[in-house]
């Protein structure tokens, strides 16, 4: 047994709140020590972000999640212009520290890869940390890309405009012939400034922002937001609402995993599964639409409960249509595992080792495909998942096959969960009134979205309004995983590898 991490942090349960003053305010050396040791002891950096203080300094708050104990540990410190970076000793912090540098114009000294994440102007000073080397306005993907030189080495730039109907992002490959030596991913094209727009809330708009953080994860992000708000308001969600949230969260997973398996088949040119899964994804989306009228679950999850309830006839219709879609997806997906030419493409493509996964702190199916049992529904259960357990689906090979196969395992388990929950759906109210938020508190909310761990951190001010709101989409953790999965692979396998992660651009760019 490992030791319970970090004695210096404030430990809270997921879904609990803490007084802001109770979060240990450490010196920089202590803060680094606390975060680095707790991550070394098996914790995972779920959030690391800055928020402005009245003094003009920036308060850094770190949330380290320990899957073994199911506890979250919070520590904080203050910085002004620079501090010694955590990244050299704690690689999980690398993307977070780049974000902090970009947002708050604070320089993490010794960061090995200090480049903008979203290419926007700093929130503080009005002068970004990359000056004076880079004067003027930051433009997306205008940065010093890592370059490989030598004979037969060539550079391939892909995007931000892609051939398919997907989101914008820039990929810079350093290749030796067909082999990729290095891939650098540059995002930020979809930065909308959502987190800044949430400050001073919550307002009527807030929940709509949440549902559109990443359009394919509407239920996931809305649930994370509502959980944070409900914790701050010390409000208990009715059981029926918890179940309905769980059901739609799993329906979202079913639809997206099905779509991903179809897209993976399409990328290797295997038409049957691609065509059928495209249709069946729609069938799962339509189940969500049957509950709330929106295929993406908009309007369903609301602070205090759910916006739509289901009656008995609708439940039987849901069950019947679920069974039909499930048997369809089973036959479409089994074609994949029965076709040697498909397996030849999936296996040993884009392998991520378990060690890399742990070092980077990957989440979701990408982590479970490396054999890591990391699942918020299991480690930090909330809502219905405290009562109904879904087994964690893992596979050990870390390649495209593993990421596809984990999705298939999860499809089966999510469908079993939805079926079971629809059968035992308790009576009672599905929504209640949420009171005012308690002032000067911080709440951390975790949800296992279909891509992985969604982490929302809400901080309230003295009036009980949001003074800071941090959103961490699973893509934020996983983009670097994709870059490393592509190392020493064939460049022609990149689209397949990319699809096996299927990360969100807008969820990352916020």
């Amino acid at each position, binding site marked *: 047994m490992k030791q319970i991490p970090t004695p210096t942090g404030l430990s809270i349960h997921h879904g609990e709140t803490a007084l802001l003053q109770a979060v240990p305010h450490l010196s920089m050396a202590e803060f680094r020590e606390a975060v680095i040791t707790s991550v070394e002891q098996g914790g995972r950096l779920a959030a690391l972000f800055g928020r402005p203080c009245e003094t003009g300094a920036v308060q850094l708050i770190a949330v380290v999640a320990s899957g073994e104990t199911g506890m979250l540990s919070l520590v904080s410190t203050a910085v002004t212009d620079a501090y010694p970076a955590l990244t050299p000793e704690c690689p999980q912090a690398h993307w977070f520290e780049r974000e902090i540098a970009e947002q708050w114009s604070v320089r993490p000294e010794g960061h090995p890869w200090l480049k903008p994440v979203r290419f926007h102007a700093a929130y503080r000073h009005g002068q970004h940390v990359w000056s004076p080397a880079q004067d003027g306005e930051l433009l997306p993907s205008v940065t010093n890309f890592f370059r490989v030189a030598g004979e037969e080495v*060539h*550079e*391939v*730039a*892909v995007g931000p405009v892609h*051939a*398919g109907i997907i989101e914008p992002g820039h990929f810079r490959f350093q290749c030796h*012939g*067909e082999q990729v030596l290095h891939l650098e991913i540059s995002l930020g094209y979809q930065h909308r400034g959502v987190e800044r727009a949430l400050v001073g809330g919550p307002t009527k708009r807030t929940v709509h922002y949440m549902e559109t953080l990443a359009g394919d994860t509407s239920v996931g992000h809305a649930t994370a937001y509502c959980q944070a708000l409900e914790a701050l308001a010390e409000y208990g969600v009715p059981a029926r609402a918890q179940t309905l949230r769980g059901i739609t969260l799993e329906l979202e997973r079913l639809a997206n995993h099905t779509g991903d398996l179809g897209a993976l*088949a399409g*990328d*290797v*040119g*295997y*038409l*049957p599964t*691609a*065509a*059928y899964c495209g*249709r069946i994804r729609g069938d799962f989306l339509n189940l969500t639409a049957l509950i709330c009228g929106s295929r993406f679950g908009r309007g369903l999850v609301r602070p205090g409960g759910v916006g739509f309830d289901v009656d008995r006839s609708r439940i039987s219709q849901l069950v019947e249509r679920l069974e039909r879609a499930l048997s369809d997806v089973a036959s479409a997906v089994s074609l994949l595992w029965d*076709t040697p*030419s*498909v397996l*030849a*493409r999936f296996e040993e*493509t884009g392998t991520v080792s378990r060690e890399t996964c742990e070092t980077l702190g990957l989440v979701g199916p990408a982590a479970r495909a490396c054999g890591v049992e990391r699942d918020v529904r299991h480690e930090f259960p909330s809502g219905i998942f405290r009562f109904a357990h879904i087994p964690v689906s893992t596979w050990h090979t870390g390649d495209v096959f593993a990421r596809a196969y984990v999705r298939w395992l999860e499809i089966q388990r999510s469908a079993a969960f939805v079926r079971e929950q629809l059968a035992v759906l308790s009576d009672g109210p599905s929504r209640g009134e949420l009171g005012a938020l308690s002032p000067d508190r911080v709440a951390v909310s975790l949800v296992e979205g279909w891509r992985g761990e969604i982490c929302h951190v809400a901080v309230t001010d003295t009036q009980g309004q949001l003074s800071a709101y941090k959103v961490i989409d699973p893509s934020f953790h996983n983009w670097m995983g994709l870059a490393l999965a592509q190392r020493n692979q*064939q*460049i*022609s*396998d*990149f*689209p*397949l590898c990319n699809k096996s992660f299927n990360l969100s651009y807008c969820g990352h760019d916020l």
Partner: protein
Amino acid sequence: MALVSALHTLLALVLAPLLVGVINRTKAIVAGRVGQPVRQPYADLWKLLQKGAVYSRTTTWVFRTGPVVGLAAVLVAVALVPFGGAPALLAFPGDLVLFAYLLGLVRFFTVIAALDTGSSFEGMGASREVTFAALVEPALFLGLATLARCTGTLSISAMFSGITLRGWGQGGPAFALLAAAFLIVFLAENARIPVDDPTTHLELTMIHEVMVLDHSGPDFAFILYSSALKLWLLGALLIGIIFPLRSGQLWLNSIVAVAGMVGLAILTGLIESCMARLRLVRVPQLLVGASVLAALALVLVLR
């Protein structure tokens, strides 16, 4: 006879895009879709011909020459390939070498037009195309050499009129190996699955498609039309080996051969529907395999 040959050449010019339509329709039906009409490739050609072309400032005359030379070379090749047992419009001893290098010429101009754009995508596609072409060519030549040995002639027309059902009875294994080798050549040269994926939108995985990304309007119509003709040409060779039916009546032979071509298109559609594309590093193995099959066939007939 010359009239029939001229008629067959006309048939190729008119029906070639139909094969593409049949392949697409087959794939759609297997995937449970209705799919585009079989005549869609004609509509696409018509649409493109009416459009203007856009040229990048980084391109030169080489880029504009590519599609024109490509189409011209394929048109000459059409005149060299016999169909339905009748000789081709042009036939002379040694025309098989001209045929192979006309296809080579098409490829050369497609590749330099692609390189002329300076795009990294097109460069990668060009590199893949020439690598694979170098591996396909031995299979084609060994196959043609086998036929030359069987029939004792160096003209494609004479060779293919020499293939008969009785020939299959005597040298069946050699013909079967040859047919298998030519099927792989057919799929590889026409950028079909398992070598290339004609429907993909992912530039990084493409071979043939990525080289013609920058062409537009009539230029692109020329490229699509020459690809369709190439599909017809290599298909005609394959059908000539598999279907050596000779009814004695010329028009019946022609109908059987056209039916064979449609059957081949359906077969291609089915192959594309039931297997994934090979990993790019595995493609050379398949292509070398085709050469080995053709070499074996040659050994069998030399014996």
